[in-house]
């Protein structure tokens, strides 16, 4: 049975799109059939991060409105056939999304893939609520900062109230993905500790993604970080998180870059 996952956060810029791409790719690397769906209608980014921006013909809105068929809009990843992207429309806005249309598309995708990963736009408005509407599982992306944590708390409340599952009295599975974690800054008390975040949000942890230039580099190259440099610290964190999502027990660690002597020296000086 296919799983519908929403990647959400409330706050913008915490790494929803990056995490959608990296987790989608990681699940595919673990042998799963995956589609990532961009719900950020009007401000689409997932196509860029996935490196598919030059192959977009039809989009989510076209499919919900019946202008295009789903297979026409899906873009298969060139690196891994098991991974597909359903892009958002850049020329429309969130009002173009209808609940009925989204429901139809998600149901069709569930027939075709093992995982349907919905990349939510920031905010708590229509785009975000429709992205989470049909989710079985939610991944809440949080930075260890108070503003991000409070917005995540808000989103968790909305997940418990406005999803189809919640309205049926069931529970959406919720996982916390802490991104942009900087152990050095956390040690100096400049950001919230993992314990603080977990205590405030009382939601189980899916993974801790360390702050890394690799993430930015991968995004700019249009390649999810797990493809671009699978041995890098953030890639290992995402690959582990994907295995946890698949139900495997994986010990929780914060992967760090292996640094040579000089690297350590400069790393410390830079920090």
């Amino acid at each position: 049975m296919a799983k519908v996952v929403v990647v959400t956060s409330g706050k913008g810029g915490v790494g929803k799109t990056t995490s959608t791409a990296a987790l989608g790719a990681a699940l595919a690397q673990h042998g799963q059939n995956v589609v990532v769906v961009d719900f950020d209608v009007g401000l689409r980014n997932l196509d860029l991060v996935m490196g598919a921006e030059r192959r977009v013909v039809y989009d989510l809105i076209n499919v919900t409105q019946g202008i295009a068929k789903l297979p026409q809009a899906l873009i298969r990843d060139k690196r891994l056939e098991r991974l597909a992207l359903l892009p958002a429309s850049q020329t429309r806005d969130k009002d173009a999304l209808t609940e009925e249309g989204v429901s139809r598309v998600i149901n069709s995708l569930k027939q075709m893939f093992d995982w349907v990963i919905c990349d939510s736009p920031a905010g708590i408005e229509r785009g975000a609520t429709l992205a989470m509407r049909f989710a079985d599982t939610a991944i809440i992306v949080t930075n260890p900062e108070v503003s991000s944590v409070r917005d995540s708390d808000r989103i968790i409340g909305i997940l418990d109230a406005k999803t189809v599952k919640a309205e049926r009295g069931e529970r959406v599975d919720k996982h916390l993905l802490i991104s942009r974690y900087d152990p050095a800054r956390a040690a100096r008390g400049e950001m919230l500790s993992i314990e603080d975040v977990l205590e405030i949000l009382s939601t189980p942890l899916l993974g801790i993604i360390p702050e890394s230039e690799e993430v930015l580099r991968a995004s700019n190259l249009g390649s999810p970080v797990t493809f671009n440099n699978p041995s890098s610290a953030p890639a290992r964190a995402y690959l582990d998180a994907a295995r946890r999502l698949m139900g495997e027990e994986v010990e929780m660690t914060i992967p760090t870059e292996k640094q040579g002597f000089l690297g350590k020296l400069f790393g410390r000086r830079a920090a």
Partner: protein
Amino acid sequence: MTSVANPRQSPRFVCRSYMAVALAPEPPLVDWIADIEQKIRDTGSFLVGPPVVLDLSSVKLSKSAIAHLVAQLEQRGVRVMGVENVDPSQMDTALPPLLRSTKRESADVSVPAPKARETQREKQQQVRETRSAPATLLLDKPVRSGQSIYFPDGDVTVLGSVGSGAELVAGGSIHVYGTLRGRAMAGSNGNARARIFCTKIEAELLAIDGHYLTADLMDMALRDRPVQAWLEGSALKISALD
């Protein structure tokens, strides 16, 4: 409560208590109205002008009879701002609103139908008690940021934390078995004896019966500790429980 789709900050609801004159009509009503008329003549303006609440506990009146009574009083210059102790089924929007006195048991109020609209589900997690249930609202999940729990009928107990930006409003006391990071307003309909208890305080605002204290004004030494808050005169006091 506004819908979540509204990006603006939702309006704040403040509960205040006021003094009002309560009039309890007694049968036969014709004589009672004559008495009132006599009183107005004798005492001058005592009943004319200030807000008056009609306590209908000793009479049983239909909707039209209530409307007639209100009209009769208004003719004599008595302004009825609310009605109490009447079956809600006898009320409609043309009549002054139904009030509930804090001293009385509110158990004889019938249960309003739950609102099915999805936009209200998140915010309106308030629960109206049924006839037999005690006036306590128990929440066994954390209260998340942006949620507003409004329970004017009694105490609110939360098993879990109250997130920053969440809001609890209770007619009675508030008990939080977890960290209180949001706002807690107890005794919202004029109950100065209400208290607030929590196992860890990081609250943004505490209020009892309209007297409030913001985080800025709270003693930093109490932060992160189990505390209770109560009202002493018009001063909100907080003390540690450990």
